[in-house]
């Protein structure tokens, strides 16, 4: 069966089970492995992508549900205004350790910044608490979001 997706502004026709999670379609069918598998249960945020600008867990979203929405992934998020500021900030502060969760962190942070250009600590915690960083780069994640928001260096 074929499902039509819109990924990073490009229509993509995917021959896969409509129940297959978007995560695995991105990774296996569309050769976009930037979005990561962490828990398969919506508990860690490693698979975060945007659907119409909203941060969603792609491991919990079937392609049937993703169809008709504009999907943005880590591979293209830097092309959005908030994504550009976030990724630049991530690079300057050298946020990653192992780096595995960072795609999800960047997607969550970008959605936050797009919705709230000046997030305070409480807003950052609320938006980012769904994303686990096993290396615990949280100090720099917080600093990088603030830097991207122009609220500090």
């Amino acid at each position, binding site marked *: 069966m074929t499902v039509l997706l819109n990924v990073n502004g490009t229509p993509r026709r995917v021959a896969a089970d409509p129940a297959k999670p978007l995560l695995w379609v991105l990774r296996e069918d569309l*050769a976009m492995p930037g979005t990561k598998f962490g828990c398969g249960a919506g508990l860690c945020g490693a698979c975060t992508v945007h659907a119409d600008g909203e941060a969603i867990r792609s491991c919990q979203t079937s392609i049937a549900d993703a169809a008709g929405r504009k999907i943005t992934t880590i591979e293209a998020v830097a092309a959005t205004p908030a994504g550009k500021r976030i990724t630049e900030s991530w690079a300057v502060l050298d946020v*990653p350790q192992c780096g595995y969760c960072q795609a999800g962190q960047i997607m969550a942070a970008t959605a936050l910044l797009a919705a709230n250009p000046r997030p305070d600590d409480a807003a950052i915690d609320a938006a980012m*608490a769904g994303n686990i960083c096993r290396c615990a780069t949280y100090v720099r994640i917080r600093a990088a979001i603030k830097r991207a928001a122009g609220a500090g260096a």
Partner: protein
Amino acid sequence: MTAVITRRMVIKAALIAGGGLAFDISAPVAAAGDGTIINAFVRIAPDNSVSIGASYPEIGQGARTMLPMLIAEEMDLAWSQVRAVPTIADEKAFGQQITGGSETTPTTWLPMRRVGAAVRQQLLAAAAASWGVDVASLTTADGHVSHAASGRRIAYAGLAEAAAKLPAPDEKTIRLKEPAQFRIIGTARAGVDTPAIIAGKPLFGIDVSLPGLAYAAIEMCPAFGGTIASADLSKASAVPGVIATLTLNTGINPGGGDDAVAIVANSWWTANKARETLAIKWNDAAQRAHSTAGYDTAARKLLRQKPQAELVRSGDAAAALAQAARRVEADYHYPFLAHATLEPQNCTARFKDGAIEVWAPTQWPEDGRELVTKALGLPPSAVTIHLVRAGGGFGRRLQNDYMVQVAQIARAVPGVPVKLINSRSDDLRHDYYRPAGWHRLSAGIDAKGRLLALTDHFISFGADGKTLRAAEFNKAEFPLQLLANTDVGQTLMATNVPTGWLRAPTSNAMAFVFQGFLDEVAAAGGRDLPTLMRELLGPARQLPDSDGMPGFNTGRARAVIDKVCAMADWPKTPPGKARGFGFYFSHRGYFAEIVEISLNQGEVIVEKVFVAGDIGSQIINPGNARQQVEGAIIEGLGQAIAGQAIELVDGAVTQANFDTYPLPRIDATPAIIVEFVISDFPPTGLGEPSLPPVIPALANAIHAATGKRLRSLPLNVALAAA
């Protein structure tokens, strides 16, 4: 090509076809003193960019950035010239390749700098010969050689031909820079893979892509050590997309078991879903008798009995306890823990024509090669291992079970590359766990609060007098070496749980036990822990080496304790807050930490953590160093209060995902203030030693806030706040 073999270093320089210069250098790890070598390669391209082989596995600790920094510094390169190149696993080509024990820094610090200095020396000699001037009249900077007198300047790449013709430099003439001359070492350098990570480029083991790639999911016996009684794979084989099904046995664990069923499909999602159709009966009656509740009951009974074996004994602890003005007694406990790397265990392999190629996110490739050669009956040369960036290690990837599993699966589908991926529950339920432990401690103090005697009965895991991996006791445990009367005994219980090294192994548990208990001892004597620590440490001196590791230096310990107390203005405490202190020495590093908390409606809020550490004379990459400490502090706090404990019921782990095995999240992140005490000792590693002290420091802070001692991990905060 020139090759000169000196007693210690082997340096080979050769022209690269198409231009450029290649150096292959083998450098001994002097500190190891056992013939251990590390090899490096340096390739100077015609555009003067310099590729440096970063041969240590990268798990997020920064080795792929640090190793090139050491070489580039002594080569006098501009950092922008440097390309860090991943390597394959090959001990013949690269010497030691293992990421563990915080040993990367101590083993590479001098050898890799010597490599860089040797290359620079040869380039200088080439310039001197070409220009007919004295080497002493030449200088280097940013990958160029300059001759001030004549104003000549040449890029290293321009010296390729001349350098390749020269004999290798005499090792005796190689001079390392003085620290004051460092321009790369000691400056924060972003991770070499950071841009690719941020762009979502494929980097990790799980991202490996090969033409015709198939995916495998695996079903292992829930009860560790169980074997397959019967397995009906027919339904799984019939699932559309499934390519193959098979049973396998890796034979890794000495306890047996390791039976598994694997499903290979054109999608991992398909393979994993097809597991639901499997009908497997396990032989696991004996294994099902194991449970953590059973261990706890048994251990608490054993604590009251005489230990099976004596581990440490000095003076007459019984007599000293009998004469003590006051005795302190307490039982401590900590649970099994999983590693929970965010990238689940995975590995990719292709078996073809009697040889196997493996792409492995592993911390210890050569161990994997040994296991694969044994399991497949292949010569070591038939196993090629590509090192792939790992999404976290924490010691989990020092075990190579996934490598053997995927090798056996790949052999069943010759020519087809297969990527094995563990689901999150596979990963949590089939780990090599930090072992649980129980301690009964007694201490005697005199009228002034001085510690006279210390005893411990340690209940650990093992059989026939042999403790399991990471379940051992360190005989140099602080403060045993500093006391006249000690008595530590051990009793071992059997378990079916595979055990392994978790970041700061043994120390992550023992720090809690001994620094928590010493806080009790200090309080019983009417003093605080830093005061008791200073008294125990006495004058600055080096204690004897223990188990091949450098001995404890009381002066370095004292310095970090003094430092952290000054940073936090100890013993003052801000209003509404409470503070606890912890110190630990592990993996060659000295760390003292103070945790500041507040209580909010029965909840403990960790507000601030002060950290003072001594890892030697030089912080090589300060940005990364701070990250390693921050991560370790948050991880330690997570072990203490996030609620992490692996529970065994019917021989199997019950935790299946992050809802029941919680990891710390951003909203529990305190302010972390880090300072390094620079000492006159060689630089040592930082992946591990900052983690252990934060756990007792938090427990001690909770006591300061509530008057209650929490002696079991994870800390039951509700109990204290009640």
